[in-house]
């Protein structure tokens, strides 16, 4: 069994130790430019913990976080952890029904939310309203809700150090589920600590580092963003959702704040390279660029490394269930004629990898198989889904191996090479999407009789999502209608790129939708239209 003891037994200890060691250093900078020192952040988190404990929060209780990214979110996260609660970050821009289904699924006892989401969370035992519009005046708040400013008036408190356990649940991250209901990946302090300790050993941060936080907190990239700088007394710059989608402003932000570490999905780096006007800025402070969450099309990777030639680049791979479990250093410059995607590399030192065939027997190196991961960063299970949790693992040699579902093959020099998936999960802009989740939404449209969604590779976007649909001839919705419908039913990253009307969907001999045929036809069509261009 891998070693599971770490210098810290709990994620809060990173903050608490830095608050002792470098109390006056700036810990976090809010998107609005305001900042807190380590001492202030620790004090605010203690007050949040005091408030939650006074409200009767018990170890393991879930607390929702549904608000735009900001300093209050970081204070709330550490406060929740100090009270031995588990935080559940939820996309505040998601459709209300989706937000509510997540809060209901894990039965949150409290929620920190912006005013709009506080309405969605109505009925939860404790609702704390954050954000500029809330204000301290209680008459502006939904009934029974508490203003964030009031929370900070609580006496500082925290769960007894001795009572904290490394196996305590720390957070739940919800991902797309195949049946249309998001599923919660539950992760313990140990899971996160083992990953953060590995990051420390490989990336060697120190208190002079300035980290970016581009990913939203409901995305697993945020674990590195939040905890690695807190451990080392570095400064974390929170990037708002608005800024994070604007490459020109983002480029200026990275340069003017002299950020030293950047971590995002390849999509964002592609946007920066293509639209960021990077030539106009000085990026000499940037020493490390990390990317994860999807395949990086080589032409975009080459583009960013040409414009940012000096940092060291790493490709980090891992599903939410394991966090990063393999990594590859990307040597630069990238040859002008390279088209082959980069490998996902070798297992991180705290993880072990196994490649097995469909009978769960290990394959010889070089053969394709499913990647299984074991180690202290591997998640506990899916919230409230014991059957699905059990089937996610392979028991072998006295260890639990998580089935990533990703097909890989091992190269003797490059490590693991990602080949694809056998199921219907794809990644777009770093988000995991079960294609069945999109179909479930489309079936709720009153004119749609049948829906089959496929994903095809795309050199520019990484992946394109196509929805094949059938509807009565005289009542076919327009594409505009379908786009609008999807924007109301699904998060933006899940909306199909195109809708294709069919008279009927192709079927296999057993009368199932013939996805392989659709997939093949779509890929051929995409290839031929590219050749015409």
């Amino acid at each position, binding site marked *: 069994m891998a070693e599971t003891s770490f210098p810290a037994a709990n994620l809060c200890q990173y903050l608490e130790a830095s608050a002792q060691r470098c109390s006056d250093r700036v810990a976090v900078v809010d998107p609005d430019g305001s900042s807190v020192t380590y001492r202030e952040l620790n004090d605010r988190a203690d007050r949040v913990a005091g408030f939650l404990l006074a409200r009767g929060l018990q170890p393991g209780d879930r607390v929702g976080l549904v608000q735009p990214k900001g300093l209050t979110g970081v204070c709330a996260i550490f406060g929740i952890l100090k009270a031995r609660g588990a935080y559940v970050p939820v996309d505040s821009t998601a459709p209300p029904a989706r937000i509510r289904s997540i809060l209901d699924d894990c039965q949150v006892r409290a929620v920190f939310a912006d005013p709009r989401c506080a309405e969605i969370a109505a009925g939860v035992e404790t609702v704390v309203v954050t954000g500029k519009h809330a204000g301290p005046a209680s008459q502006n708040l939904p009934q029974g809700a508490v203003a964030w400013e009031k929370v900070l008036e609580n006496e500082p408190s925290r769960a007894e150090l001795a009572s904290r356990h490394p196996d305590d649940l720390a957070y739940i991250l919800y991902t797309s589920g195949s049946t249309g209901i998001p599923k919660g990946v539950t992760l313990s302090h140990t899971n996160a600590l083992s990953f953060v300790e590995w990051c420390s050993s490989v990336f060697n941060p120190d208190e002079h580092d300035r980290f970016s936080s581009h990913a939203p907190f409901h995305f697993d990239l945020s674990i590195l963003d939040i905890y690695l700088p807190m451990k080392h007394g570095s400064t974390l710059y929170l990037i708002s959702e608005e800024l994070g*989608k*604007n*490459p*020109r*402003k983002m480029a200026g932000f990275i340069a003017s704040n002299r950020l030293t570490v950047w971590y995002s999905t390849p*999509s964002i780096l592609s*946007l920066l390279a*293509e*639209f960021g006007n990077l030539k106009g800025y000085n990026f000499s402070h940037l020493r490390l660029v990390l990317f994860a969450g999807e395949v990086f099309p080589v032409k975009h990777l080459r583009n960013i490394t040409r414009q940012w030639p000096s940092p060291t680049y790493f490709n980090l791979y891992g599903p939410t269930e394991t966090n990063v479990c393999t990594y590859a250093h990307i040597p630069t410059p990238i040859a002008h004629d390279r088209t082959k995607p980069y490998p996902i590399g070798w297992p991180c030192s705290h993880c072990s990898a196994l490649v097995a065939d469909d009978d769960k027997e290990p394959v010889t190196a070089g053969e394709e198989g499913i990647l299984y991961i074991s180690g202290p960063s591997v998640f506990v299970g899916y919230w409230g889904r014991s059957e699905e949790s059990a089937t996610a693992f392979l028991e072998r040699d006295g260890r639990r191996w998580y089935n990533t579902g990703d097909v890989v093959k091992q190269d003797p020099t490059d490590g693991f090479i990602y080949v694809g998936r056998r199921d219907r999960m794809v990644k777009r*802009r770093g988000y995991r999407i079960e294609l069945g989740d999109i179909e479930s939404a489309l079936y709720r449209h009153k004119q749609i009789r049948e829906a089959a969604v496929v994903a095809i590779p795309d050199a520019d976007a990484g992946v394109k999502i196509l929805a094949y649909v059938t509807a009565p001839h005289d009542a076919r919705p*327009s*594409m*505009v209608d379908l*786009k*609008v419908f*999807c*924007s*109301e039913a699904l998060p*933006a990253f899940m*909306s199909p790129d*195109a*809708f*294709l*009307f069919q008279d009927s969907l192709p079927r296999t001999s057993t009368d199932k939708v013939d996805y392989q045929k659709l997939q093949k036809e779509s890929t051929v069509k995409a290839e031929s239209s590219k050749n015409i261009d």
Partner: protein
Amino acid sequence: MADQIREEIRQYILTEFLPGEKASNLRDDTPLRTSGIIDSVGLLRLIDFIEGRFNIQVDAYEAGVENFDRIEDIASLIQKKRPAGA
């Protein structure tokens, strides 16, 4: 002139974001951003197209919903920003 600008934008949006859609379903006042037809990445591509095609520079503060939610608003912005006589 304004008609031509609107048509070019319409054609671009149809090709890039609504492949297969009838031109008549994409009206001058069809919501683009608030409807999800064009997401944040799509907006960057649209701006890139407009800047190249009409030889103008769109500033970050101009890229909001007030100028980019409808074809007619985008066309007005372009007309306002084009150098006189262009």
